[in-house]
């Protein structure tokens, strides 16, 4: 029986962690994800979880302890944001390279400098090459649902890769929304027991983990990691199907909104999608055929599925809440544009950088984007391949 609550994105993630009941959780406080660990610490203090909580002295040690704990052979979760994740950077790659199923609640926040505690996606998008699966969440419900599904995805024998579940700092993490919680036993049944393939604590079957791997083997192991990423896509779909059976809430590789019959479209992850949907409704009432693709998955990048969903459009604007300084455009735009390249008749694809450091994406910004898309669709020409919006210039 679902329980309807009004709660924040952070509380939703903490509640999912409580229901997952990991064996070990190692974490370090950082705004805006701190509350996830505060609330989870309370669950530990009250004895409602079996988790051994390791309150480490830095995020680098948080991920290191998660790696040790996962290698030991149990279920491991953590939470962080921005600079905290940046301090984990080295260990992110190691967690993935060691093929350890660690799940991270990432509350997206801008990277310094200038120091800023508000939302953008420079943390997770910067980690796109680290070997972590990345699931994005528009709201608290999705953050909660994704975190529960992440456990199954991460531990799947074909995958065995860490997963980060991303939600927007403050915009979602600190805003109260209506959402539905599952019962504890539903979650526990859904995620099942974890049986590691190799465990340090299995003294009778000793293993050496984290070996020195030179020219004669390294690339084969990286090739296997790449294969695991590929295999993750069908696993993510299958886990979503099971989740839908239990909850009625459908998840795929992405969500579309009025996209099938659209002529122009926007691509955006996380909370911006909520605002965009609202503005799409306005334009649809005026008869303008605009739609949205909201990726749930950025890593692995499900190229074929995105091409299939977007290929019929005349023009697309991809919104990046992150800049890849000096690049042609934002990282999501570049990948979407590249994915569409092989189509005989491909959409004109441009990008916008928006919302850095928590700047709001407002109605007028979305209207500007759609008005421009309509013009591009008519003329086939664009003014600028990538520009900043939501900025004073």
């Amino acid at each position, binding site marked *: 029986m679902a329980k309807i609550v009004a709660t924040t994105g952070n509380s939703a993630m903490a509640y999912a962690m409580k229901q997952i009941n990991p*064996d*070990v959780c*190692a974490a370090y406080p950082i705004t805006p994800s701190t509350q996830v660990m505060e609330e989870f610490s309370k669950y530990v203090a009250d004895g409602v979880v*079996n*988790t*051994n909580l*390791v*309150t*480490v*002295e*830095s995020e*680098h*040690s*948080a991920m*290191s*302890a*998660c*790696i*040790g*704990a*996962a*290698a*030991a*052979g*149990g279920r*491991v979760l953590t939470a962080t944001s921005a600079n905290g994740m940046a301090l984990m950077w*080295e*260990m992110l790659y*190691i967690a993935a390279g*060691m093929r350890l199923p660690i799940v991270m609640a990432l509350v997206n926040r801008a990277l310094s400098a200038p120091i800023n505690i508000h939302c953008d996606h420079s943390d997770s998008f910067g980690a796109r090459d680290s070997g972590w699966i990345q699931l994005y969440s528009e709201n608290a419900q999705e953050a909660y649902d994704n975190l529960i599904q992440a456990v199954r995805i991460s531990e799947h024998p074909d995958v065995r890769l860490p997963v980060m579940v991303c939600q927007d700092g403050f915009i979602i993490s600190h805003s109260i929304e209506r959402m539905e919680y599952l019962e504890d036993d539903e979650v526990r049944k859904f995620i099942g027991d974890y049986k590691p393939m190799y465990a*340090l*604590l*299995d*003294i009778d079957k*000793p*293993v*050496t*983990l*984290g*070996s*020195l*791997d*030179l020219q004669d*083997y390294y690339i084969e192991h990286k090739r296997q990691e790449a294969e695991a990423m590929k295999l993750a896509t069908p696993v993510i779909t299958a886990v979503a199907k099971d989740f839908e059976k239990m909850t009625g809430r459908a998840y795929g590789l992405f969500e579309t909104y009025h996209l099938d019959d659209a002529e122009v479209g926007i691509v955006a992850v996380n909370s911006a999608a909520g605002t965009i949907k609202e503005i799409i409704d306005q334009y649809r009432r005026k008869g303008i055929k605009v739609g949205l693709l909201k990726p749930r998955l950025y890593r692995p990048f499900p190229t074929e599925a995105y091409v299939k969903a977007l290929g019929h459009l005349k023009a697309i604007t991809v919104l990046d809440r992150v800049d890849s300084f000096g690049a042609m455009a934002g990282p999501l735009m570049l990948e979407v544009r590249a994915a569409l390249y092989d189509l005989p008749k491909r959409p004109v694809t441009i990008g916008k950088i928006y919302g850095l450091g928590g700047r709001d994406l407002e109605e007028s910004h979305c209207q500007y984007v759609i008005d421009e898309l309509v013009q591009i669709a008519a003329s086939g020409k664009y003014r600028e391949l990538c520009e900043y919006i939501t900025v004073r210039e």
Partner: protein
Amino acid sequence: MANLKELSKRPDGFSPGHRLCAGCGIPIIPKLLYKVTDYDIVVASATGCFEVATTIYPYTSWLKPFVHSAFENAAATISGVEAMYQSLKKQGKIPANRKLKFVAFGGDGGTYDIGLQSLSGALERGHDIVYICYDNGAYMNTGIQRSSATPYGASTTTSPAGKVIPGKMQRRKDLTNIALAHHIEYAAQTAVSHWNDLATKLQKGLDIDGPAFICVMSPCVPGWMYPSDQSIEVTRMAVETGYWPLFEMDHGVFRVNYRPKQKLPVADWLKLQGRFRHLFRPEYTYVIEEIQRQVDDYWEYLAHMEQAFPAPPK
């Protein structure tokens, strides 16, 4: 403590065939570690000579569970392993009678310098671990760069003896006493030249339910520059000259475990090693005098510690 003959018959946890240099002091430590105890041990190691020379895929020297993740985090990694053990044990997923122990290894670079924060965190949190620093006094794995464990006056590739600077001009960090400041039950300094002292300290560290820290002087042939059959002698001389005192803090009692019968001048240790050769030029006599002053000063400090933390009256 068993004698050497008895120890040699006990099962090994660390096998030969590794690629550590001839004369390297490090392998003595894991060999003794597995032999002195009946505990099942899980080891984590920092990146460094020890790790790269014993785990070259697809081979391993580790007959027991071993994990390496990065350079600066052996203490955090073993914290995670130990935390998982405690969790699974509490949940009944590991039989109650299965007692495991957890050991982390790091070199001096990975412990004194880049791993200090991670070590401090692990000691403060009170994990049931033994952290062993094999201290060869420089970043040997990357080619002999100075660390904060490098002795005053030593020539390394980043503190070379030059025309105006006679090697490293900073005193060694006193890591064992930093570990002590975490008020842990056991912290000790020992050396591979004194197997009995080393074995006893490993045993004591393992027997404690909580964190223990052991700093082991471990000689390095290419870094210290001496013939590879002289490792034990060179290390023994560090102890005999008082450069490397053997001491411990054991449940609040501070003991100097070995007092040389006749404390030899530190120059007797320095002259055995190429890294100090430049100090014997007449213009650098003052550096040797400074090292001697530091040694004498440190023994005074140890005397104060013994007075401050005496054994309880019998």
